Every structure is written in C-alpha cells, then in structure tokens.
C-alpha cells in the first residue's frame, strides 16, 4: 500500500505550491456565517416523534413546544429527564383540560436541558415536540425556566441561509 505515502516534493516546489494554494484562496468566497444577520436553514419544523412507528421525524432539536390540549400530565417526560438533565419539572397550571385531571404540565429549565430530545420520544400523546428555535440566551437564570404557558407559544424562526457550493468555493448564502 505504498500509494498511501505521498511523494516527497522538493523544498522550492513545496513552498511555491503552498503559496499558490494560499493566494488562490484570496479569490474564493468567504465561508463565514454572519450569525445574527444570517440564520441557518434547518430541516423540517423541528424534531418530532411518532410513537406508533417508534421512530423520530428528522428535524433540529431546539426549544420545545407543548400542546396543552394533548398533555395528560403523565410525567413520562419528567421521568425520562430525571436521569439525564433533571431539566423538566411538573408544575401545576390553572387550566382545566379533560385529559389532564391533575392539571400538571412540564416546565423546562433550559439552563439544564441538553436538547437530547428523549422527552419527546417518551411522550406517548404527541404533546411535546421540539422546534427550530435555539436562541434562548438571557441575562438571568430565572428567565431560562420556561413555564408551560411559555412553552405553548410556537416560536418564529426564519432561517434562510444555506451552504451553497460553486466553482468559487462554498459559502453561506
């Protein structure tokens, strides 16, 4: 397998090739994603789970969205999270749903969440999905705790930028 050993070039050729390769890139497109101005386009609407088939649906794993009309307060998400991040806590809500006798719903602490999405896998009632929104930073820790009401809001995420490849190299557009 001597093909795996590259040929040793002479010193001058090596330098010239390196300079050529470097200066060639002065003409190529910049690759950087200018984040706050540009946002990446993600696949789908977010990570979802199909309990019947037992398979997830591809999508990015950002902040959760909670469907109040489906949540039964079964605590399966909290039990799953207990061994992983302990981010989910079941809290009392002031809402009355007929499928949710105990009136408890998950409240997620994004200071602890690792975005593994196993809580979505665990939910047997399609009540917990994940969305594309990943910009969750805040100045205080308290603001990272999302109550069930906050989780019910569908975030807006308008990422449009993708990697495009042409003869002048790859760039984010």
């Amino acid at each position, binding site marked *: *397998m001597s093909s*795996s*050993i*590259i040929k*040793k*070039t002479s*010193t001058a050729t*090596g*330098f010239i*090739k*390196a300079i*050529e*390769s*470097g200066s*060639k*890139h002065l003409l190529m497109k910049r*690759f*950087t*994603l200018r984040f706050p101005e540009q946002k*990446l386009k*993600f*696949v*789908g609407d*977010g*990570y979802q789970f199909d309990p019947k088939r*037992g*398979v*997830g*649906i*591809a*999508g*990015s*794993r950002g902040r959760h969205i909670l469907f109040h009309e489906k949540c039964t307060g079964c605590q399966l998400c909290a039990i*799953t999270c207990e*061994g*992983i*991040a302990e981010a989910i806590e079941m809290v009392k809500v002031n809402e009355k749903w007929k499928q949710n006798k105990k009136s408890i719903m998950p409240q997620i602490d994004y200071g602890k969440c*690792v*975005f*593994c*999405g*196993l809580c979505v*896998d*665990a939910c047997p009632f399609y009540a917990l999905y*994940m969305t594309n929104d990943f910009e969750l930073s805040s100045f205080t820790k308290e603001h990272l705790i999302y109550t069930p009401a906050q989780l019910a809001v569908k975030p807006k995420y308008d990422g449009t930028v993708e*990697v495009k*490849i042409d003869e002048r190299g*790859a760039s984010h557009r």
Partner: protein
Amino acid sequence: MTNKYSESLDSKFKETTNLGLEVVKEASEDRLMKLSVGPQHPGSGHFRFTIKVDGDYIVYCDPDPGYVHRGEEKMCEYRNYIQNIPHLERPVIHDSTNITYSYSLAVEELLGIEVPRRGQFIRAIASELNRQVYTLYWLAIYGIFLGHSTMFMWPTGDRELFIDLLAALTGARVTHAFNIPGGVRNDIPEGFKEKCLEYIKYFEKRLKEYEDIFYNNPLFRQRTENVGILPKQDAIDLGVTGSVLRASGIPHDVRKVEPYDVYNEIDFKVQYMKTCDSFARAYVPFLDMRESCNITRQLLEKMPESGEVRVKLQSNPKGRIGEAYKRVESGRGALSYYIVSDGSSKPYRVKISVGSFRNILALPHLLVGSRLGDMPSIYWALNYWPVEADR
C-alpha cells in the same frame, strides 16, 4: 529507548526506570527546569503534563490527566440503558456518534436485539460523518499547534459542512444522541443523500488544498519527519490504537478486523504508513478522511431505500444477566465498552476503554529525548482528546 539526547549525556547522569524510560538522574538536577504544560496552556487542552527540560531537550515527562474527570462509568450505574446515551457522548462531543455506537452495540447484545438493516446503514453513515468532524477538528488544532493559522481556519470551516449534514440527520449540531440500542432515533430526511454527495465531492477537492498548504509544506515536513519515532514493536507493546498504531506500520482497523454492522459489505482499505514518525501520525488521519469519503459514498449507495430504522423497545428495557464487550473504530482508534448486566434495567458496571487513554501511554516514551519545540507536534499527533481520556 535511547535517543540522541541521552547518547550525548554522560552515563552517570542516566537512569533507566523500571518502565523502560531513560531519564536524567537527580545528580544533574540543577541543569533542569521543570515546566508544567497545562492545564492552562495553549498547547495542552484540559490536560497537564509535567516536563523537565535540559536546555532544549525534554528529559522527563509525567502525564497527569483528570482535569475533566466526569465519572461517566459511575454515572452509568445509576441510569437505565437509554438514559445513559446523552451523557455518554459528553467525553468526546466531536465524535459523539462513535462513542455511543459501541455502547449501543454492547447493549444490543445484552438485550438480544438486532438492528434493522436500514438502521445499520444510517448508523454507519452518521459514524463516518462524525469521524470527519472529529478528524477535521483534530487537524485544525494540529495546524495551530504548529503555528499554522490557515490550517486552523480551513478545517474548522469545512467541518461545518459535516456538522450541517449531521444536524440535518440528527437534529443537533454537536451532541447528537443519535444511536440508540436497537437502531437510530430517526430516519434520513429528504434530500439528504444528494446534499451529502455534493458536500463530499467538494470536500475531496479541499483535501488536495490541505495537502498543498500543509502536508507538503517543507517546513511542516521538517518539523514532523523523523520526530517522535514509535517503532512497530513499541507500538505493539504499548498497546496504542487508531492512527498512532497505523502510523507505526500495523494495519489494524476495527472496521476491518472485526466488522460491525454493515462494514463487511463495504470495500475500503486500511490506511497505514511505515515511517512511524510524527508525520505518519499526522498523515494517517488525513488518509482516513479520504477513505471515509469513499465509505460514505458506498454506504449511501448500498443503503436500502426504505425500511425500519429502529427496533421498538419496551420503555425500560432489562438486560440479560451477563456481560458484553464491543468495540468500534472511532476517530482515535478502538473505542470499546465492557458492560456487565445483573438483569435489572440499569447496567451493573460500564467500563469505557478509549483510544485517547491508550495512546497517551506513548507520550512519555516519545517526548523524553526530543526537543521542546517538538512537543506540540508529538503530543497532538497522538490523536489524543483529553476529555475522553478522563471520561
């Protein structure tokens, strides 16, 4: 192990330890300067090794990992088989698919389940893409360790391509939590295959540029060739693995010697070099990346068009009493899990044997006798990820 430095030294200053290392005795201690490399050193990572230098030569080296010890093995005993996955990938988040791969294999053996064929292919694809991500990151740091800032930026930029692919596939950019006992979490999204093929084609073009500016650069050659030679027999004795082993002339790749999942259907070559020096250790991962492109292409072609990707598990699976030892080839070499089950839903004992921990054993043997300036090129060529070694 002898070297140029110790040959030049008077024998009364020399001493061979019972580990086979030739170090300088206390008698000449006043010549030596003790340097601590790490944990806050730009050239160490979360890792520390104490070196003693005599002028420009390193005469003593003592690695001291443990600065990011997470106690993964202990944590595993408190969580069930599924819950273990998100935290098991933390030791090496750049290679998170591979580190959960062998865990999944071992748990599958304990649970007695078989992964559907399409699931095996998706696993292998994710594993190969993640190997690229890891190797590019490694290469970027190797570049900046040698003072080559362009080689830091290019791989980190190109790594983004594979991160995008993995994000499309798994939903997360770095910590995927994708492999799960019984298959993978979700199916391949639409348009993934075309995108993947396009990116790989572009990436193979980029690899040529890497060769021009980095691997064929005479200064890089000067700095790495004939530096830190780990002969074949030493490599075998020290039990190093992965690219370090293959750079010492032993074509050992777990994908080849003990093919798991679908790797026996893939046609690929084990890349190895016989020069045993730092250059070989730096170049073998590069060849692996190239080979990985081929493997990914074949996997995408041979993958069945449809089918199950995951076995439906019960909610809290219980392993059979017994033990399993499974290994995969990760970015740093063989990564194996030894799992003992006592019949409950939690593993009784999980032992992770990682490539980094095995490779770092070679560090004192290589560093002693080499120059201070060779330290970064030897250390990082060992394909070492400090966090992984600490587990």
